[in-house]
């Protein structure tokens, strides 16, 4: 069965909104009126993108940034109905879409890093029951659920107008929302990342997680590693990345 006739108009209208410079204006639609839509809709999208990606925008400059915004709106089919997830669609486009425009090698990771702040700020995850003063080594550790781990090939947290890296440098960051609802970033190393992974995977005490890491690393001195791990866990509790332990 063919699509109803009115949908032919919708298809042409949408196509022209996505790409006003390379597609024909639908028949019977005055240029002045069409321009209202092409401008309103694109400005709406750039408003969301500008708000989320100030560093990306600044680093490639206004012309290239707008060209990239346009190719996103033209080529990518955003599936989310939620307006706050438009920046996530943009990151998906950079990650998996066909982007013909030359961009710095670190650009997509930088966009992901800027998006993570918004994502964690509004992440919907109820705070689990926990004992804030519990013994992190002896009791299962409760992590702050409002967090994301970013594993990047580039030092995204240092990129800015004064620093555009030439060589990759593996960088791992935890982005989380603290008790005062502020978004925080902490740089971590691969061992700490593994520690967080183990604590997140199943109810695990700090000691169990350290023992596991010790055996994975074939560490010669598990006691020293446990003392080291305990320091990290307490530090994370102070920062609000660890809430405490199970009650």
């Amino acid at each position: 069965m063919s699509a109803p006739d009115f949908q032919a108009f919708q298809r042409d209208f949408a196509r022209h909104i996505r790409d006003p410079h390379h597609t024909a204006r639908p028949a019977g639609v005055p240029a002045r009126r069409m321009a209202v839509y092409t401008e309103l809709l694109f400005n709406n999208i750039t408003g969301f993108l500008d708000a989320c990606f100030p560093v990306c925008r600044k680093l490639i400059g206004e012309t290239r940034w707008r060209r990239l915004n346009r190719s996103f709106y033209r080529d990518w089919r955003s599936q989310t109905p939620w307006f706050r997830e438009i920046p996530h669609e943009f990151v998906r486009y950079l990650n998996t879409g066909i982007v013909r425009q030359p961009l710095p090698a670190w650009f997509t990771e930088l966009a992901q890093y800027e998006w993570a702040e918004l994502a964690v700020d509004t992440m919907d995850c109820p705070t689990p029951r926990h004992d804030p003063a519990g013994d992190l080594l002896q009791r299962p550790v409760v992590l702050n659920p409002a967090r994301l781990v970013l594993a990047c090939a580039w030092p995204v947290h240092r990129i800015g107008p004064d620093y555009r890296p030439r060589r990759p440098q593996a960088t791992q960051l935890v982005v989380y929302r603290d008790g005062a609802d502020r978004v925080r970033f902490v740089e971590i190393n691969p061992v700490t990342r593994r520690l967080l992974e183990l604590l997140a995977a199943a109810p695990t005490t700090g000691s169990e997680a350290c023992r596991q890491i010790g055996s994975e690393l074939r560490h010669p001195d598990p006691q020293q590693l446990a003392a080291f791990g305990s320091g990290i866990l307490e530090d994370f509790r102070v920062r609000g990345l660890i809430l405490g332990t199970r009650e």
Partner: protein
Amino acid sequence: MNARPASGAGLGFRRELIEPLKSGVPEAIRFFEVAPENWAGIGGKSARDLRHFSERYPFVCHGLSLSLGGPAPLDEALLQRIRSFMAEHGMTLYTEHLSWSGDDGHLYDLLPIPLTEKAVKWTVDRISRAQDTLGMRIGIENASYYVAPPGAEMSEGEFIGAIVREADCLLHLDVNNIHVNSRNFGFDALAFLDALPLERTAYVHVAGHHVEPDGLLIDTHGAAVIDPVWSLLEAAYQRIGPVPTCLERDFNIPDLQQLTAEVEIIARLQAATRQWKAA
């Protein structure tokens, strides 16, 4: 949460207004309106702020992304999420625009539906399914538009009337949209109002708009409501009574005092209608 139906005059709920509202909600504001697309499924401070107010005031749910006249499959997951969002906050009314907002992806704005028989049928079917999923009648809003899609088989009033009747849904009347369209397309706003299925009106919007240098009106919700739109609201109340009415303001947001003054005008017009009806 217990259901709290909206009545009287209300205001669009925006982050910019949360702090001033926390130090006291003005008497005239009897309810708030939120877009689920901006507020459902979020956590953190925004979620706590919303709950703070939804525990104390009725909220109306006004959608943006359902694309009732759109070609993509109806987003049942969005409807389910809206249903639980409304239950969480005791909302009893959901309205959406009589428009479409995407092709095979979202375009994130409201576009005009061609006024054809097939479009009526298509849209009625989607509204009916939305009502089934939500378990309630929904309101559909007469939208603003700048292009009249070619090939119309009926007037807009007939289009809206047919859809409201066949879908057995409610009308969400936007008087600013009528004014904007009447100026941009040269028709009589009152005659248009009278052609609508007004007896189904559940909810009303009033807002300001922008005028381009060449005289074209743009429905920005970024300015104060102008007198002809207040007059149209008054005319609507004379026909339908003091239906719950929300002031929309989405850009150039002034301080709460200025917005409250506009909400007070709504409340005064509603009170005058009640007296007029009683007389």
